[in-house]
């Protein structure tokens, strides 16, 4: 019988808190990461951004730029910064369980 705490072990992250394996991600983990980073409740708008980041990464192997995020996610840049004041691309990537975006834009 598997010990119940085995399933609740937090997923492995790098020093900054980005998940090492995107496959270990689920919505609960997302909510926990958000909470730790100062977002108490993920709204539909947060989810729209987080899912766009994650889907783009899983599809293309790279996180979108802030420009693409503002143009294609359905959430304009101004609102992105209201939702994620500490940096939308970085924080949405962290919550979405994908590596830290490496682009300069």
């Amino acid at each position, binding site marked *: 019988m598997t010990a119940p705490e085995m399933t609740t072990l937090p997923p492995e992250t790098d020093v900054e808190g980005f998940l090492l394996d995107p496959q270990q991600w689920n919505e609960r983990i997302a909510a926990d990461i958000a909470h730790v980073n100062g977002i108490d409740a993920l709204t539909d708008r947060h989810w729209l951004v987080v899912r766009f980041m994650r889907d783009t990464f899983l599809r293309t192997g790279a996180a979108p730029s802030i420009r693409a995020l*503002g143009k294609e996610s359905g959430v304009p840049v101004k609102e992105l910064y209201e939702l994620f004041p500490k940096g939308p691309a970085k924080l949405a990537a962290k919550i979405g369980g994908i590596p830290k975006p490496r682009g300069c834009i």
Partner: protein
Amino acid sequence: MTATLHELTPRVDAAPEPITKVCIVISKGSLEGIYPGLIMANGARMEGIEADVFFTFFGLDAIRKGRNTKIKVATVGNPGMHMPTFLGSIPGMSALATKMMSRQMEKLDIPPVAEFVELISDSGGKLYGCKATVEMFGLSLDDFVPQVDEIITVGEFYEKSAGAQIIFT
């Protein structure tokens, strides 16, 4: 006694304070003079760092209506181009170099100057014009894109830079 001395020893492993605000001065009007400052300002906002951008002298072209869409690479007097000056001075050479560089930047998702300025403003970055230059060129706030927050003096710039790192480009 030894414990006290130990406590007095400065901690060398303490992490340095992270940057919380940058004030970036853009003073040149060429494409290669404008972009670095814009990229650094946008990059700061992406990291959650506050960013002010102060445009002065020909750097004002980056926020000037009608001019911010006509920013060109300097092909003359620019050793970085690695071409003889007389080639750089051929009519159309600057336009050609600009076109090539813009295409390259578009591939990297770097926006054109006008859009980039808008992006920084939407990201919460503040944009200021330099009063001395605005007066020297006989301009007013109406000559600039609506994202420009204010025309300020150098003194006001320093006031706004309290606690910030100043980066001159």
